[in-house]
């Protein structure tokens, strides 16, 4: 009889506890704070022999830090290409050297709306940056001496714009996502040309664009 109140209490509370259906909050959607994303569209395309059309996001890696209903978001890509070719023809030689580096980054903030246990919608704003250097030289040894043609191109670019994102939760640690963005971007390029011993020539050009990027890339995100 002594246990009767406890029994009644247990029956009462256990019913209420089981009645609490899982309401999906942002905390339960993202149990971990950090997230790294890898663009795996090409993996799907190449390994699974799907559509090989590869026009996709320039960013290969993304990092996000979840701060409650908001997240800090960033993405980064780096491409380095160094080539040196030497051709011989009729005793003459031509040496071509190409050094290209392209780095692009993006940082921003996004706000989340949990649609259901598995799907999340986010909207936010990004700031973009791009630095590109392209140095190439051609050394022509034509028997009368060496002639060297050198081109040095440097591009700086920046932009900003809003974004929308859909994310599907596979498990607490695994997500797949895709996003759409409307970015305005401005870049300025300076090119220095040198031909032999003649004075160098400098040209400047700029480029501005607005692009609504539709979802083209699928990111696999891992939380930790």
């Amino acid at each position, binding site marked *: 009889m002594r246990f009767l109140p406890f029994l009644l209490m247990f029956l009462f509370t256990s019913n209420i506890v089981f009645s*609490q259906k899982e309401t999906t909050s942002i905390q339960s959607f993202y149990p971990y704070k950090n997230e790294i994303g890898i663009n795996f569209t090409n993996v799907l395309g190449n390994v699974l022999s799907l559509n090989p059309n590869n026009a996709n996001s320039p960013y290969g890696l993304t990092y996000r830090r979840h701060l409650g209903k908001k997240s800090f978001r960033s993405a980064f890509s780096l491409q380095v290409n160094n080539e040196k070719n030497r051709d011989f023809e009729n005793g003459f030689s031509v040496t071509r050297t190409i050094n290209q580096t392209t780095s692009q980054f993006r940082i921003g903030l996004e706000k989340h709306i949990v649609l259901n246990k598995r799907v999340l919608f986010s909207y936010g704003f990004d700031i973009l940056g791009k630095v590109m250097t392209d140095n190439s030289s051609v050394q022509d040894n034509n028997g009368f001496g060496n002639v060297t043609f050198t081109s040095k191109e440097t591009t700086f670019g920046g932009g900003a714009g809003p974004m929308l994102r859909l994310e599907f939760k596979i498990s607490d640690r695994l997500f797949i996502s895709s996003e759409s963005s409307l970015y305005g971007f401005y870049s300025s390029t300076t090119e220095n040309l040198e031909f032999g011993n003649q004075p160098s020539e400098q040209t400047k050009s700029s480029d501005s664009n607005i692009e609504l990027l539709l979802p083209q890339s699928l990111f696999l995100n891992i939380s930790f």
Partner: protein
Amino acid sequence: MKKPIITIIILFLYLGIAISQESKEKVDSSVYAEEDQYEDDPYFWSYTKEIGINFTPLVSKLVPFNLGQNDSGLIGLRWKKYYSSRAFRINFGANVTNEEIDNGNPFIYLAFGVEKRYPITKDKKLAYTSAWDLAFSVEGEDGDGFFGIAKGYGFEYHITKRIFLSTEAQMNLGISSDNVIKVQFQLPTAVFVNVRLY
């Protein structure tokens, strides 16, 4: 002594179940709280906002037998605000980059309009939409403009009440930049993934 105890236990059990059911109903209806409760709120999409993103480029990559270049249409983003049964909507698309100008394909598209959605099935998962838009677009290297009205019919499938797929056909009637009357029927080309916000 035993009888009252058993009665109390049954009473508590019943009370617990009753509360559990009530809270379950509350949770279940929390998302669609407005639905069917008021006369001017006849659908679960009444008084909601919707954002649609053109997912054709991604979908076309994931379909194995689709090897060609796809045409996603001019509309990239779609925003709707539903009132009782009608919505105000904005369609937008833009691609003005040097690359596209060189290829001769830059464009800007903007349309404002009114839409009404009609359920096809009883559970309202399948629906069609009828819309009137005031559309403006500039396309191509020479900047061929279009200004006119567009009558659209769309088809939608609700995966859940907050996520749905849609596509739309349009009949455009207007004036081009050469002052020529233009009539164009556009078949459904894009698949939109839409999100409903409360």
